């Protein structure tokens, strides 16, 4: 208790400057906690999405336990994907899927609110004509991945042709689930959802490693304020235990307040974060809330980590009361750091192949090892800067980088880690290059082989009635085998071996504007039960969406990294001013212009940020260029450049914000022996 009281007195008695140090620590911990909660919340949110979507991935019933038959496939409207589920109840009283009040009766249609709105908005022959007529019921949030999702559930009779387990299909896409007898609608996590969860985990590791480094640095900021005073306490006889206890107590109190502030910041930011579009839409605010247990865990873990970090920062004081009094040439970073990093990076592809868990552990180890090598590289940059410096500002910056490369690395590590991925993915265009150019005006429909002639004829008639000029041709199993000589719009021709159970019917539209394509899709709906007409462009939509999402995620992670860099730059700048306020004051007193000190401080952050952060983004862009095949995403480029420019501006701004502090501590020239 006495320790706590004395710590509290030390904190309060530190004066304005002492409180500035504590305030900065509090702010840094708040930023770290908010971002940490975001990282945790992100994983919880993907988990929640996967849970809500699970009912659409049926698990086949064993034996005679089936209560319903369920199928799922993608439909398309414009460039958006509709998740279409068909359900046939095999007995009454079956528990409905999440979000539905009951299992749909045959002919009954349930839609997500977004799809229902779109169906009302678009002409009937472009969308709603594809579904059975009648009142549309609305699916609740419990059955939706997100509020903007397009989902339709159509009730079928058990003997409906659409619900009969199909003949072998032609190139069935992964997202098409054939009619499956189910014992209930619990389902299982889909492959795509699992993929997103892995990506979220990777993003978390990317965010958390720099955050932990930054949080630790913030803790030491408190110690930096106190170390000389605590050394004095050691000199008058305080035991190492007492010194450690006081330090930890103070750091934990400040960090506890910071963690609570971070929780408030995160809670306030959730409505904004919920707008980040992933998987075609934003988030339910509740998804991003990690839950009481996880929040409590973070609120306990953060002060604990900060306390441990503070105690570690005090080792020297504890070992020797004179430990902090003298400043010596820092021991050179050993090249072994680089060797360890290279070894881990070399082992990553081998170990990463074992499984997801090993992959994530290896990824974490990889980042930690890069963190080992990072300061070494910063030190090297510092030595080069020093060797090539002509003016005092660059010389001071270079020497400071050599003196404390870890401080600079803390600022740039996040950007350096994520910059490569952001640069690599930032410019990729989902519509071209990676995916190739795919025609949107070529609708293909799988049909049973024995009915192909009749269906082709019907398709031709329906398209004509809908006013969609098109040529309908039929090809055999496997890839498209459309004969360009078959031009007659009135007659469908038949090609292929004739032995397969299914054939592919292709309607080549003369126009491929979205409205025409949707009218054609609607016209062809129901022609081949259990199948939708899709274009090659549609086949690439899910992949395109995934690429877009990975890109969005990367930009989010890069933004977080820049936020950490901005906060870290501010903290480092302020801490550096407070640490050497006396030297700065005396330098100014001796006539050193404030602008020289400012330039030195700016260069100290900007040189490593440009070399390591900018270099990593640029390396990513250069490595990504060969697979872009000339199709650069303009939006992606603008977002990436915007993010990098804003990030750099933020880092410079954070440094500039501390200028008044520099001015104030150098305004009083009298040397203070505190």
């Amino acid at each position, binding site marked *: 208790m006495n320790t706590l009281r004395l710590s509290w007195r030390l904190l309060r008695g530190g004066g304005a400057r002492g409180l500035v140090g504590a305030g900065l620590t509090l702010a840094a911990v708040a930023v770290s906690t908010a971002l940490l909660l975001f990282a945790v919340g992100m994983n919880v949110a993907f988990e929640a999405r996967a849970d809500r979507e699970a009912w659409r991935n049926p698990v086949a019933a064993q034996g005679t336990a089936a209560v319903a038959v369920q199928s799922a496939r993608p439909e398309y409207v414009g460039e958006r994907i509709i998740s279409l589920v068909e359900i046939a109840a095999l007995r009454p009283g079956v528990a409905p899927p999440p979000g539905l009040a009951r299992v749909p009766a045959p002919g009954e249609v349930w839609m997500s609110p977004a799809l229902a709105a779109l169906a009302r908005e678009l002409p009937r022959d472009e969308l709603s004509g594809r579904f059975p007529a009648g009142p549309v019921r609305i699916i609740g949030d419990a059955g939706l991945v997100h509020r903007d999702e397009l989902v339709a559930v159509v009730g079928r009779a058990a003997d409906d042709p659409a619900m009969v387990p199909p003949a072998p299909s032609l190139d069935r896409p992964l997202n098409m689930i054939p009619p499956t007898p189910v014992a209930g609608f619990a389902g299982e996590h889909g492959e795509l959802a699992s993929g997103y969860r892995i990506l979220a985990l990777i993003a978390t590791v990317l965010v958390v490693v720099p955050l932990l480094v930054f949080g630790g640095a913030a803790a030491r900021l408190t110690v930096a304020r106190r170390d000389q005073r605590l050394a004095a306490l050691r000199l008058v006889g305080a035991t190492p235990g007492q010194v450690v206890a006081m330090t930890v107590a103070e750091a934990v109190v400040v960090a506890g307040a910071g963690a609570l502030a971070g929780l408030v910041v995160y809670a306030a930011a959730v409505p904004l974060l919920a707008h980040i579009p992933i998987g075609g839409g934003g988030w339910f605010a509740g998804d991003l809330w990690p839950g009481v247990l996880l929040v409590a865990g973070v609120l306990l873990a953060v002060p604990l980590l900060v306390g441990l970090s503070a105690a570690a920062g005090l080792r020297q004081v504890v070992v020797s009361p004179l430990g902090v009094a003298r400043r*010596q040439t820092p021991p050179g970073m050993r090249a072994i750091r680089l060797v360890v990093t290279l070894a881990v990076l070399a082992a990553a592809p081998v170990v990463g192949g074992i499984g997801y868990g090993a992959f994530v552990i290896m990824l974490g180890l990889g980042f930690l090892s890069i963190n080992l090598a990072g300061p070494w590289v910063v030190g090297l940059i510092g030595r080069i800067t020093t060797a090539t410096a002509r003016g*005092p500002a660059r010389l*001071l910056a270079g020497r400071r980088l050599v003196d404390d490369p870890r401080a600079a690395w803390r600022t740039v590590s996040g950007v350096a880690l994520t910059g490569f991925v952001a640069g690599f993915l930032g410019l990729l265009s989902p519509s071209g290059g990676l995916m190739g150019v795919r025609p949107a005006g070529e609708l293909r429909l799988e049909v049973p082989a024995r009915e192909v002639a009749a269906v082709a004829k019907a398709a031709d008639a329906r398209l004509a009635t809908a006013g969609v000029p098109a040529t309908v041709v039929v090809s055999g199993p496997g890839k498209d085998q459309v004969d360009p000589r078959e031009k007659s719009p009135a007659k469908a021709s038949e090609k292929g071996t004739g032995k397969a159970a299914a054939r592919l019917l292709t309607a080549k539209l003369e126009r491929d504007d979205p409205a025409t394509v949707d009218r054609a899709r609607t016209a062809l709906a129901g022609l081949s039960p259990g199948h939708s007409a899709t274009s090659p462009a549609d086949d690439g939509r899910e992949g395109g969406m995934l690429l877009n999402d990975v890109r969005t995620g990367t930009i989010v992670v890069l933004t977080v990294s820049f936020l950490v860099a901005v906060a870290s730059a501010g903290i480092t700048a302020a801490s550096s001013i407070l640490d050497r306020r006396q030297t700065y004051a005396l*330098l100014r007193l*001796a*006539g*050193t212009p404030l602008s020289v000190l400012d330039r030195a401080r700016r260069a100290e952050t900007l040189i490593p940020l440009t070399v390591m952060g900018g270099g990593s983004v640029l390396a990513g862009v250069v490595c990504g260029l060969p697979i872009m095949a000339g199709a650069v995403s303009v939006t992606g480029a603008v977002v990436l450049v915007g993010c990098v420019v804003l990030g750099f501006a933020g880092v410079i701004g954070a440094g500039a914000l501390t200028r008044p502090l520099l001015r104030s501590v150098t305004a009083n020239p009298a040397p203070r022996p505190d």
Partner: protein
Amino acid sequence: MSEGVVLEGRALVKRFGPATALAGVGLRVQRGESVAIMGPSGSGKSTLLHCLAGIMKPDEGEVTLLGQRVDTMRERERSALRRTKFGFLFQFGQLLPELPAVENVALPLMLGGVPRGVAVNQAMAWFGPLGLAGMESRRPGELSGGQAQRVAIARALVTGPAVVFADEPTGALDQATGQATMDLLVEATRGNGASLVLVTHDREVARWCDGLVEVRDGLVVSGTATAGVPR
């Protein structure tokens, strides 16, 4: 202004709120002369040094350097003046911990626009005469208190200032080291044709100077050399 007068303060008054730190002090320093300003804590001796060095503006009175008014200059001009015409030496904390000794000495030259290579070479030349040979690449934390003060002396003199201001330069040193440092400071200052204004509360230290001025309650109470100029 008399011939040979480098620095002069006349009827200097400086107030901090209700407290009067200087109540009309005058002081004159000749070329190459060393003057010690003595007085108890709170007597106003450091304030007098700050006003003479252009760090503070006096509320009343005037300060001239080589006939040029210092107290009417703007901060930017006074800053440039401090960089080029004055050298400073303090009790502690004036060396940048991350710079090796030679770069600490070269820094004022570089701030004045001297190319780094030239500045470092000029700085190196100070190490032998000050007994610091071989310590050029050591950092302040690797030097003893006396060695660090000698590096600071070199830094104060490297730009060839007209006046060196020293505020308790031996305050953090033991007696023997303090004596040796004073010896070096006075000799090096004189050898470079600079004047020295030194603030101390130690009479032994003050003895190294040509003149002694005692300040009490913001007033000069005695002057034993040409320096003392009761207002």
